[in-house]
């Protein structure tokens, strides 16, 4: 048992940190430090910088542009990006659709899509959830019917994140309504600029436009846009969902936010003293720090197992990552909002026109409540935390 990173891994961390320091646009970093979501331009610019360095697709095989890193290196890279903070490579491209195409796609699909995905020449979005298919994803109804050399798609997707930016969508469609629900689904790629596609924004409670409804009305795509076999799309979906084992832990992101919290709590006053001196506040914050340390060790355990046995069966520790990772992020976002006291009431974004020219609130107070409201989503998406418990009961507890 040796719980420390090797000298090579530590050197790698320094290399990554130095590259980020030298290459991450200062405006992007400042934007993220303020707690805001990166703009499309920021994500695209940064991913092209990473791709030029050969670091945009850490999870992909070397043949398709991956850097050939170990699980530990991938973890270090992810963590350094989160702590910088820097935008992560677009998950829909590099962690979701890309790996599915690599595992199930044809050679032509790989040649056509993968390089543009890695360079973020195409922005992809995910068409899984539907109004009637949330936690019960296999209950989806969006139809694709074969007509000559085309699939004709009709139906509705929802909660489609950043569809407003997207050039392509990867879809789960029902191609055989007679079969058992998991067995009649296909994985189909569809350009977003086709006639018959309508994107309608969903504004979430904090006022942001992140998610959308996407409607398909006789949308036609060529048959070669099918990935894998017809009616075997559920295999692709399971592969995609099972692929993301660490993404939701986001240890580095939480550590960065706790640092931010400590800085804000020095500036924010409570009882005539800086809030950071209040024992009750400190105690709540420290409870989260302890949970985060345990989560970090849990991630390490999963990585160490992956490095030893790439095809190993799921570790019960993986199921902890989603639940604890999201609880911690939600907890920190709540403490950040509370740290601002009454100044958390200010709505919106200080960079929006005129919003803070009268110095309505400290700059750092903007958006804290918004993030708190927005981050309630974390325990809902990616398999709600209750679904995670169902999975644990079945897969690990034998109940």
């Amino acid at each position, binding site marked *: 048992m040796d719980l420390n990173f090797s000298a090579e891994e530590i050197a790698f961390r320094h290399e990554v940190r130095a590259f980020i320091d030298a290459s991450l646009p200062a405006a992007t970093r400042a934007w993220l430090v303020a707690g805001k979501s990166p703009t499309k331009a920021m994500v695209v610019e940064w991913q092209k910088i990473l791709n030029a360095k050969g670091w945009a697709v850490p999870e992909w095989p070397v043949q398709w542009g991956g850097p050939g890193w170990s699980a530990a290196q991938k973890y270090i890279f992810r963590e350094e990006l989160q702590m910088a903070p820097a935008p992560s490579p677009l998950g829909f491209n590099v962690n979701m659709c890309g790996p599915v195409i690599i595992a199930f796609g044809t050679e032509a699909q790989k040649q056509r899509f993968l390089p543009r995905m890695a360079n973020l020449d195409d922005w992809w979005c995910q068409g899984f959830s539907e109004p009637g298919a949330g936690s019960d994803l296999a209950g989806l109804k969006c139809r694709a019917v074969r007509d000559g050399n085309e699939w004709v798609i009709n139906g509705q997707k929802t909660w489609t994140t950043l569809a407003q930016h997207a050039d392509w969508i990867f879809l789960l469609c029902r191609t055989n309504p007679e079969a058992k629900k998991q067995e009649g689904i296909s994985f189909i790629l569809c350009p977003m600029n086709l006639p018959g596609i309508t994107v309608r924004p969903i504004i979430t409670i904090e006022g942001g436009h992140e998610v959308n409804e996407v409607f398909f009305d006789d949308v036609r795509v060529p048959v070669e846009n099918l990935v894998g076999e017809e009616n075997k799309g559920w295999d692709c979906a399971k592969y995609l969902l099972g692929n993301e084992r660490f993404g939701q832990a986001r240890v580095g992101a939480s550590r960065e936010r706790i640092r931010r919290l400590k800085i804000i709590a020095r500036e924010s006053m409570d009882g005539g003293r800086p809030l950071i001196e209040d024992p009750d506040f400190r105690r709540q914050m420290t409870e989260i720090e*302890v949970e985060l*340390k345990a989560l970090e060790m849990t991630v390490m355990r999963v990585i160490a197992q992956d490095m030893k046995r790439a095809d190993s069966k799921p570790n019960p520790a993986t199921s902890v990552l989603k639940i604890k990772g999201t609880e911690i992020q939600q907890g920190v976002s709540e403490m950040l909002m509370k740290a601002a006291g009454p100044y958390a009431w200010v709505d919106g974004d200080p960079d929006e026109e005129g919003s803070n020219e009268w110095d309505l609130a400290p700059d750092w107070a903007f958006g804290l409540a918004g993030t708190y409201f927005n981050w309630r989503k974390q325990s809902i998406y990616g398999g709600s935390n209750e679904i995670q418990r169902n999975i644990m009961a079945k897969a690990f507890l034998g109940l």
Partner: protein
Amino acid sequence: MDFDLTEDQSLLADSVRKMFADGYGFEQRKAYIKSAEGWSTAMWAQYAELGLLGLPFAEADGGFGGGLTDTCLIAEQMGKALALEPWFSTVVLGGGFLRRASAEMRRELVPQVAAGECKLAFAQVERQSRYDLFDVATTAKREGAGWVITGRKGMVLHGDSADRFFVTARHAGGQRDHGGIGVFMVEAKHATARGFRTVDGGRAAEVEFDKAPAILLAEDGLPMVEAVVAEAIAALAFEAVGCMDIAHAMTLDYMKTRQQFGKPISSFQALQHRAADMLVALEQARSMSFFAVQAASDNDANERRAGASAVKVQIGRSARLVGQQSIQLHGGIAMTMEYACGHYFKRLTMNDSLFGDADHHIKALADDGGLVKAA
């Protein structure tokens, strides 16, 4: 980074597991508790035979040169078996001091400890000290070439069977000063120990020293105490994980067999989710127990203290959840003395409060600025 055990470590854990499988059934343990010592002298002899008692000492001193990880693996098995013998007080606490003692003392005592002939205890707690290691009223005075100790120590684990005590006593400064605390060794014949049973079925003693002749280990002793306690906290973390493992497994088994409303209660989602939450708490605790080994080995005293506190917080929180819910999900059966689950719960509860419970350590860690350093 590697969380796997070495071959030697696996063999060690297996042999301890096997020893307990043969000698520590529920009825056997009950008989040990009722015996004169309150634990099994026969098992103690087996510990010695297996090499557990000499494990962490240097080979040059008569030990087997084991590391903290080895100690922790044994502690985990102790937790699973709810072992009663004075292993923790002798090898982890007493041994922690003995390893840091003079060559002369090591030469004399290590072979005796390894053979099971000398049992050790750590006399630290006082009525007013609660969990503060530095709150020491017991006094030490120079007398001739040596020292004498006067004072009362409480809750001395296995103090009624110890042959030697390691004792904290103050030779300078006020009762709560961090300086002026010495670590001493006192032979049992110079102390009065009144033994009693603890809530978890173990043994402890109130120990009185009245001008007891003592040998000095460290004049500025608090750093030594903190180093030993950090190792003890790592062992306690593994012990707690062992207890939680069994309590959780028993609960799952019971859920699958207990029928109500015509089906096993494991089919009810509310209970499934509770069991899943127990697994989350258990795995977080297991992760933290690994960190405990790393933290106890940190050369920076502040980092070590912060790490040990973080471990106590996580283990304590997890142990409480797993312990309480294992009782709840069983229902009435786990409330009975005749069912093992409650005994794990009691041990977990006591484990939390050894060397400071989670509430004590969250306060200490928060006052020291937490784990994440602000930029």
